[in-house]
């Protein structure tokens, strides 16, 4: 049905052309809708299931009958996803803030300030970009165990204070800002930190937006480090809480889908409002990194 309408619409829009052209348009839309369906159906099925009662989940009905909010209440009260969500939000907020500040500060210094050894230090930063987290897993775990930090939020925050990728990204952006602004600030008698804080950071808005969104998403979605460093129930985050739920109550599908959608929703909302920054962030982080 939808396919027909879009094909007709496309035909109405485009002046008559060769049949091959029309066949191509039709094929393109067929492929597009087929892939979209493939990508969306699992999510739609999850949404529908999250509004069903448990006995209903065994049947092949797309629409719940009757609708129920119980799975969401269960997930948030009985299964403590409210706590996991608070933990996730806290960690994502703290780590994102520290990344914006430290990557901005370091990125500004590497972009603008001249000091001996700058190139060597910057090469060191770049070399950490290549390093897989899995290599540092054992030594970092041993260090944090020795410092009695495992099972505390401090462990995860410490190892994530700033990433080389973010610093590199901020530096590249600062390089594109004309020097006139800083010189004006200097004439006004502003010190280096004030210039950075009052002049450069506000000018780097789009870069900060990209770092904020991607870093927040990264922490919110991270499973590897919380699974390693935050193993007690009081410190579970949404991702590790979900995994534990799968291990213990795998077949309570409606509650599991509600919990999964609670975990996904904030990032989807962010994406809807800040799509531009998501896409430019992913692409520039990729192309330059």
């Amino acid at each position, binding site marked *: 049905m939808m396919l027909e309408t879009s094909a007709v619409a496309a035909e109405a829009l485009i002046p008559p052309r060769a049949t091959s052209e029309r066949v191509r348009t039709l094929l393109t839309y067929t492929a597009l809708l087929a892939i979209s369906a493939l990508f*969306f159906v699992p999510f739609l099925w999850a949404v529908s299931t999250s509004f069903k009662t448990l006995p209903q989940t065994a049947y092949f009905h797309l629409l719940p009958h009757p609708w129920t909010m119980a799975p969401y209440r269960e997930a948030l009260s009985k299964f403590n996803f409210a706590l996991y969500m608070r933990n996730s939000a806290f960690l994502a907020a703290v780590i994102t803030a520290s990344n914006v500040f430290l990557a901005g500060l370091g990125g500004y210094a590497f972009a603008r300030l001249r000091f001996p050894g700058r190139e060597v230090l910057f090469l060191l930063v770049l070399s950490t970009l290549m390093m897989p987290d899995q290599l540092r897993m054992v030594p970092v775990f041993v260090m944090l165990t020795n410092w009695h930090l495992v099972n505390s939020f401090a462990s995860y925050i410490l190892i994530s204070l700033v990433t080389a990728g973010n610093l590199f990204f901020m530096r590249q952006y600062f390089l594109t800002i004309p020097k006139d602004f800083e010189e004006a600030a200097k004439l006004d008698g502003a010190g280096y930190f004030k210039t950075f804080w009052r002049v450069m950071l506000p000018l780097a808005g789009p870069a900060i937006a990209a770092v904020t969104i991607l870093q927040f998403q990264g922490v919110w979605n991270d499973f590897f480090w919380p699974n390693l460093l935050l193993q007690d129930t009081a410190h579970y985050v949404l*991702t590790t809480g979900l*995994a534990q739920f799968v291990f213990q109550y795998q077949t309570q599908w409606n509650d599991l889908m509600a919990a999964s959608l609670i975990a996904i929703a904030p990032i989807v909302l962010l*994406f809807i409002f800040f799509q531009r920054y998501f896409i430019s962030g992913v692409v520039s982080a990729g192309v330059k990194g």
Partner: protein
Amino acid sequence: MRTIATRLRPGKRGAATVGGARLREALVGYAFVLLPMAVFGVFFLYPIGYAIYISFFDWGIYGKIASVGTHNYHYLFHDHVFGLALKNTLFFTFTVVPIQMALGLAMAIVVNQKIRGRAFFRSAFYFPSLTSSAAITAIAIFILNADGLLNKIVGGHTPWFENESTALWSIVGLISWTTSGTMMLFYLAALQSIPTDVYEAAAIDNTGTWRTFWKITFPLLKPAHFFVAVVSVIGAMKVFDQAFIVSHGTGGPNNSTMTMVLYLYRTAIYDVHFGRAAAMGVLLLVIIMAFTLIQRIAFGRPEVQ
């Protein structure tokens, strides 16, 4: 004299001479990079050396037990499960990478056409890449369970993740679904940087669509192929979350979902053999570096634009 000094002064609190200003700038520079460099030093660079060091010891929860030379490496080379983990990881890499590249490129080409609703389709294809591995794996477990949606559609009763012969393939499908969108964005950026006059020339020569793609677009995307291949291979070699969650951390059934990182994790956390786990991390790094080098040779040096 006084006026000259005032003029050279960058600010009220600035140093009195050019040399002083330079020194001040350098000191501020060091101060600004101090904290980031400390984080990189302590939590990224030092751990590389420390990992190699630990890999030469029998190392438990209370630290060093004994120096064992290269025994941890010898052990791994003769370890049946490590062999399986390596085999699974390589199998996974050689299936996921081509699928991701082909799907990513196909989707990028489609949403790069002048069609209606291309922003919608771009978002739709990218959508699964937004979600956390844990949430998407939970949804996949639901869809692929013995009574799940997929079995209702195909009319079977296979527990996809709990069946030795389908478990790894199911993870291949899951990850292809959730990461191709990111590869699409990389390809899309590369496609949009191809100058349009190249295509205009092809149109004048009356070159067909299919031929234009294979003779012009595909070769021009060489740097993008290299980049996507490297990113995709590194991601595939590190696969962990999905295997951990679907197998409840066991790598089962019968080690069919045991990946290198999952085995590394189990060795460190469940068996508390930090030395052996560190050795695995070092081997993983060596393999990833070897792959990157091979790809660099295969695709040639990425051209400077």
